[in-house]
């Protein structure tokens, strides 16, 4: 770690916090800030200065109160390697698991339920790179986390973990909202559709889908029906069966494997749904393709 970086405090008790750092940079430093691959989930707040960085291969201009959230394996740095004048603060969390194509599990310390953690992972990846403009709360939360750790008052461990959860919830809610502020529903829906296709085997619920679009479930269901003609779950089933039709005719995979792959929990459930929608059982449909 460079000498300009001030490790905020001892984190020995919090194995899930890899670093909690405040960086104040008074002069321009060459070669200090090259594009680097990140490990862990990093929440970085810009406090002072203007930064011109490459985040995930795209140029971004960052100003005070901007917040960047990176997933493991994503990259950030200055194109010339220069660190401009200014100050930054960040926290890096070490999730229990969040490898490529694996679902996010933060660890036992978090009170966010498993499904919401998985959704968080999916949202971070699909909206990558996450850059939130003009959002003050994350830095305020970082400061409170720092104070708790320094002051070691009664049950501070619990408080720190609650504050990290709060930080995550703040980011997710802001993310769905900011993404959608200027967008019309069809665009938000297209992004959701891509997420559904990317993890078709996940047992999606309407609440989860609504969260992706940044709406409550009732408003979401109404909008989806008006826009697509389908209820959210029927739309999902439609994508699942379309994928199954392709696999039935283009692969030798067993019906059970196709069912599980496309998000049906049993081949019985798969067969009835398939027949109801297409008029054929999966077996008949496969044979029909081979005639």
């Amino acid at each position: 770690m460079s000498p300009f970086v001030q490790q905020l405090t001892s984190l020995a008790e919090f194995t899930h916090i890899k670093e909690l750092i405040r960086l104040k940079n008074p002069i321009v430093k060459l070669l200090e800030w090259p594009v680097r691959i990140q490990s862990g989930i990093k929440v970085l707040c810009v406090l002072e200065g203007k930064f011109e960085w490459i985040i995930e291969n795209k140029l971004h201009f960052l100003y005070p109160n901007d917040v960047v959230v990176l997933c493991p394996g994503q990259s950030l740095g200055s194109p010339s390697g220069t660190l401009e004048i200014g100050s930054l603060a960040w926290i890096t969390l070490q999730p229990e698991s969040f490898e490529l194509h694996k679902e996010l599990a933060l660890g036992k310390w978090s009170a966010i339920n498993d499904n919401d953690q998985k959704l968080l992972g999916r949202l971070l990846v699909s909206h990558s790179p996450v850059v939130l403009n003009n959002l003050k709360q994350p830095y305020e939360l970082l400061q409170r986390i720092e104070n708790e750790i320094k002051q070691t008052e009664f049950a501070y461990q619990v408080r720190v973990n609650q504050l990290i959860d709060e930080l995550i919830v703040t980011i997710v809610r802001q993310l769905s909202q900011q993404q959608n502020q200027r967008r019309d529903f069809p665009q938000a829906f297209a992004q959701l559709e891509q997420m559904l296709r990317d993890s078709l085997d996940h047992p999606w619920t309407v609440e989860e889908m609504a969260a992706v679009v940044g709406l409550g479930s009732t408003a979401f269901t109404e909008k989806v029906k008006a826009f697509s003609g389908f209820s959210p779950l029927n739309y999902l089933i439609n994508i699942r069966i379309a994928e199954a039709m392709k696999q039935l005719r283009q692969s030798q995979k067993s019906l059970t494997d196709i069912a599980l792959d496309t998000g049906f929990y049993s081949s019985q459930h798969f067969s009835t749904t398939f027949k109801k929608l297409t008029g054929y059982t999966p077996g008949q449909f496969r044979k029909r393709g081979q005639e």
Partner: protein
Amino acid sequence: MDCIVTLDIGTTKVKASAFDMSANLIGWRQGTYPTFHPQPDYSEQDSEQIFLTVLYALKSLLNDELGKKYHPSALVFGASMHSVLPIDKQGVPLRNAVIWADNRGRNEANALKQAPEGKLIYEATGTPLHPMSPLAKICWFHNHTPPTWFEKVYKFISIKEYVIYQLTGQLVIDHSIASSTGLFNIHTLTWEKLALDFAGIKPQQLSELVPIDFGELKLKKEYVRLFRLTSATKVIVGASDGCLATLGAGVVTEGDATITIGSSGAMRVAGNQVIQDSQQRFFNYLLTKGKYISGGPTNNGGVVFEWFVQQFGTSGIHLDMDYTIKQLLMEAERVPAGAGGLLFLPYLLGERAPLWNANARGAYIGANITHERRHFIRATVEGIVYEIYSIGKLLQQYRSIQNLYINGAYATLPLFAQVLSDVFGKTVYINDKHDSASAGAALLGLTHLGIFKDLEDAARTIRSVETYQPNLTHHERYGRFAEIFERLSYKLSEDFDALVALQTP
């Protein structure tokens, strides 16, 4: 009671509608599907998902909406033009369908334009030599896939043919959809050898040609059951959405024109002759034998206004596009015709007719210090209309046009309708049947069943419910803007090229 069921397979959705035997709409159901853009120039769709959405829309219309009260006498198909889906011998799609908006065949279309046979192919097929044309797309497949793959392709079909094939097991293509492939001779009604040779395919690799009122299709028994039909229901192949929309707007003879502004736009006329434009700026598609639908398409319709709304419309209401659009149009109404001298070229997506310049780009010109947001809103509406007018002006060199029938979500908004009427200096009519493509399919079905004598007779049932009269002072003023608009569109072409080079990484 008897009824007619129509199915319109569009770019973003499929719509199943039911009409009574006098062509009045009884009810409809629809379902949407996405377009994928795996690369910037690519636009693809999943044929299985489209087919499932067709089943869903038909099933919910027939089983839920209509119930036991109505008995469909016929089912008629309409669909978007220009899609290409390669299938193998078992009828299994070898990849996603490539749709009209896909531009991967850019180089192939240019090569064809330069080739000596280009002009002959355009004259024979009526389809402009453009990447939208299936001819250019099949050439692309030929040039960019391994020969082993290309040989595996049993047939190149369209999305509509695939849906019909799934439902009936029959591979047929109607003359109307065929006339949008760039492969079909619209004068002799056969596949055009010059075009097929250029694409490197044989006639056997295309479906069997049938007239649009071909009614010898038989639904598979599973679907008869699924839709709760009987074998008495006639299944009629139908035509393309553009041709059906013209019929459904009541325009089948010379003297009238339709203007559609949805997400994209088009101006179309009908006639017994094709329009032979030496600069190849118009399409000539076939509605039915000897009945041609000619005109020009624009990329930059409502989609451009939506872009403006997304970027500059600040609405407090979450995700509610319709509300924001209404608010902005109200602001624009407070600005006099001509937007205070602010002029907009709407070429955000490049342009087809009449420029046929993929590198054309958008521009606001004439801004001064007194202009406000509302001037920009009004200029955006007017720019979209000037573009339609530049197509119309050329069309009028070949056809006299008395009446304009407008349709599509944007053209029928009051401000758009009034500006259209003022710019053209003509009365503009809005019909009782808002969805003219479905109405056209119903008229075709009813004619086939003998309810109407012919398509002209059927078209007479369409009634106008709203009219806009031109303000001649505005018309005169708009005329001066339209001149500048046209001049700039061509004059800026070098700078468009230079800017596009800077926009490409």
